[in-house]
């Protein structure tokens, strides 16, 4: 693969990665958010595979494919199941829509899009000294990973539905993984495996927790969890 094509493809994958994070902020339907998250998993896998193919480290290509399967296949599938379980028994009452939409985020969509713009600029400003250490195409894309981390935090803080918060947590993790790949050309296989299983377990636990929250309160709106109960 020529250097020029590699740079182009890497930039394209990083652009899609960041764009997916922004789309999560833009969309209201939880089903659409999960779809966008799956696309982001594909972009992340593409970044890892491209880096691996460029440096001819085939274990990294394998890690990339594994990440793709986990983040574009398994995790979105789990979230879709959780979403179906949430909306299923409410459909009879005609308010299944309330559970499947992020109706009232704490910060409205237009403002959160502008905040995402500011966070991206912040990420670029912070990553500047890191990029200057060794300006290759991969390190130049480093701010993209940081921006996705920040946007993930923002989603975690401002969204009310439990499932949207799970997506925020996963965005955060996607961002950390992308930063690791771009900055260090990939972490050892064993570390990546550990992180991936950790994330998978976290999502499984959160899925159970979400179901319990809904059983107890009839909704997954986090705002109802302010008081302690016996």
């Amino acid at each position: 693969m020529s250097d020029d094509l590699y740079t182009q493809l890497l930039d394209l994958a990083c652009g899609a990665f960041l764009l997916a994070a922004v789309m999560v902020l833009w969309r209201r339907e939880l089903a659409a958010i999960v779809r966008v998250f799956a696309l982001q998993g594909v972009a992340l896998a593409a970044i890892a595979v491209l880096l691996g193919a460029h440096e001819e480290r085939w274990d990294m290509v394998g890690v990339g494919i594994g990440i793709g399967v986990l983040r574009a296949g398994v995790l979105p599938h789990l979230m879709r199941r959780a979403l179906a379980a949430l909306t299923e028994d409410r459909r009879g009452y005609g308010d299944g829509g309330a559970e499947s939409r992020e109706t009232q985020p704490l910060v409205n969509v237009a403002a959160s899009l502008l905040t995402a713009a500011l966070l991206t600029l912040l990420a670029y400003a912070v990553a500047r000294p890191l990029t200057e250490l060794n300006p290759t195409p991969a390190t130049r894309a480093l701010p993209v990973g940081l921006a996705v981390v920040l946007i993930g935090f923002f989603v975690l803080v401002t969204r009310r539905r439990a499932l949207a918060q799970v997506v925020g947590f996963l965005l955060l993790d996607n961002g950390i993984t992308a930063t690791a790949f771009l900055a260090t050309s990939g972490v050892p296989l064993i570390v990546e495996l550990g992180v991936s299983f950790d994330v998978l377990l976290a999502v499984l636990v959160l899925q159970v927790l979400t179901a319990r929250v809904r059983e107890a309160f009839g909704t997954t709106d986090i705002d109802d969890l302010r008081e302690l109960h016996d």
Partner: protein
Amino acid sequence: MSAVGYTSVAGQVLVVGGGAPLLTGWMRQIRARLEGRAGAGVLQPWRDLRKLLRKEPITPVGTGPAFRAAPALLVATTVVAAALVPLLSTDTPVRGHADLVLVVALIALGTMALALAGLDTGTAFGGMGASREMTVAALVEPTILLSVFALSIPAGTTNIPAIVSGAVHEPARLTSPAGLLATAALAVAVLAETGRIPVDNPSTHLELTMIHEAMVLEYAGPDLALVELGAQMRLTLLLGLLSSLFVPWGIATSASWTALAVALVLLAAKLCLLGAVLAAAEVFWAKVRLFRVPELIAGSFLLALLAVTASYFLSGAS
């Protein structure tokens, strides 16, 4: 050189001025066919304009110079912008003045003149339309500026002919993520600026939702003809700008008659294609609620900002 150059400037103004009603008619015709109607024909906007021009000029009582000057100002700013933007050729005598900021300012001046005219009538609808138009315009202008800045960073200048000729010689600039993001952002901004369907519906006069039509409700006769022609010309100009920036192939970069003729044919083809795509899309889209419009435009502003950051940081400018 100068004969070809001046011809191309005149050609641009003529294409935008004479072609704008045809483009509108073409889009209406496509829309009608897709909706299963026969349609009024491509020439109908020209017939409407002729009918309106023959009527007696009439202005409401109590309106001042802002109301009277606005239609002429709208058309005049659009004509100047059409002469500046490289639609047919990048090698024109006025290319030194064709700065991005100037073109956006000219477009904004036309918008502002119309909004002032809407306020000048003193009617409820005029004021409401003007305030809505300004809300949209305040968000759209920075988006247009930013999305073209994303393309001007690799070119190193905000001169539009220089950006376009640079893109003709280096197509990789357009397929980069920055170019794609900027395309999407500018497309949304153009839809909002020209009052097309996700933002405003040009074919209804429903008082709760109209933006552009509310401002021009008091116009009649030749003034209305000018306002409509101005709106159509702006649509043509902005679609032409979009096609010059993102599909620049075929635009004459040197002073030769054959290149100019090829550019003319290709420009007409690109405009027809863009218009057809837009008309077909409008059939399937619904107008978004007025309070969702800032969301849409904030999204496209963000895309433009990401395009600028991507083209500045990713593509090795540092």
